[in-house]
């Protein structure tokens, strides 16, 4: 096994060499930030959530198994971290999701995004939480279907079917947005 693979580094962390986590941080902090930002559309939440993932990876290092893919394990933690925040927000009735105004989506986005992209983003935010998560993993995080299946603990075909449905819903919302904009809404 490559001594600098994600899995080997995590094994070292598990053995108590916590400093090795800094190499994993270098490899994954951007990707995790992207993931949380796509989900929450909030800079501060994304920073906190990112931090939470690395902390949990240290706290629960013993749940990592050498024969599992590090990335899948990390995303499962990320998913739980997001779910915990989402649940908490729902409980607080802060309505994290609805609190994000469609107009606010562009707040931290790179420059030069086309109108099409902006409409797509708005359309994604109108989908269910599960559908958003699936599309974010596919489109932004570039995670393959079999890996998504492991993260979500469902079969790869189930991922494909759900993705297919999510894209159909996305297209529907996209058309709606087009119509709304044409009608000057």
């Amino acid at each position, binding site marked *: 096994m490559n001594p600098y693979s994600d899995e080997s580094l995590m094994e070292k962390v598990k053995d108590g060499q916590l400093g090795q986590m800094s190499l994993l941080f270098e490899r994954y902090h951007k990707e995790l*930030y992207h993931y949380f930002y796509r989900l929450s559309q909030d800079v501060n939440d994304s920073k906190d959530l990112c931090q939470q993932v*690395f902390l949990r990876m240290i706290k629960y290092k013993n749940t990592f198994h050498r024969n599992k893919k590090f990335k899948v394990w990390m995303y499962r933690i990320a998913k739980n971290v997001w779910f915990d925040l989402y649940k908490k927000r729902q409980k607080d009735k802060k309505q994290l999701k609805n609190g994000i105004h469609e107009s606010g989506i562009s707040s931290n986005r*790179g420059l030069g995004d086309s109108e099409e*992209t902006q409409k*797509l983003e708005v359309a994604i935010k109108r989908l269910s939480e599960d559908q958003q998560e699936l599309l974010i993993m596919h489109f932004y995080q570039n995670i393959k279907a079999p890996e998504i299946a492991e993260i979500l603990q469902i079969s790869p075909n189930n991922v*494909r*079917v759900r993705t297919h449905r999510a894209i159909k819903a996305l297209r529907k919302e*996209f058309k709606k947005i087009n119509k709304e904009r044409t009608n000057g809404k």
Partner: protein
Amino acid sequence: MENENWSIYYVEFIKGELDEELASKVKQYLADHPEDLEYFNFLNSSIKNLSKQSIEIPEEDLRRAFFNMLEVEVQNAKNLKNKSLSIPPLLHQLLHKIQWKSMAFGSIMLVIGALGSYLINSNQKPETSTLSSLEEEINDLKHMVLLNQLNNQSPFERIKGVQIAKDYQEIDLDMIEILSEKLFFDDNEHVKIAAAHALNKFKSHPLARSKLLESLDMVKEPYVQILLIKIIGEWDAQSAGNKAQELLKNETLQPELKVIVESMI
């Protein structure tokens, strides 16, 4: 299989994640179902639009928070280790478990003997483990400080970081890995050059040598390539020579740089 709905594979098909056999099936399915074309095109353009989209990352904040957290966790781990080494809880646990009344005299003597030997050995154990845990901690912190420096936004600070690494008397695998990452991927040529020099200082280490050789293919900046050819040429003339020949074939290489490369062969 013939009636299978291959449209669920469109995403993977567009992302190029399917093997040839599956990809051709999806292609055929799409040809047989022209009604899917509009959906397919929508999906295709969505993936293209969204995947090229970028967002700003609060790099410094993330880094600061991470290293603070890591420092606390390293400290906690150290405290926990020391705690588990302390004798009173162990003794207490052991004494608690012993049912004195039912014990025979011989057993008591055995326990006392065992305890004595434990105490004698334990006088040395904590010292050695404390030392090694301290060494571990210092090593971790050294990496943290260096990583912080090497990931600073200012190239000047990053060069300073490389210099700190270069000043070490000995280098470990992590440090080599960190310097290699700088040599391969840093945005700034000067940082790359500093990292190449630092790695070359530790060329007696096999990993440092292999990373330098690997960099011949990884690094694309002509000036850094020339430097690499020069320093690698001192201990592996063949690899450096091959790269120099390859570089000469590059038509975009500036004439003055070509002269330098030619002079090295």
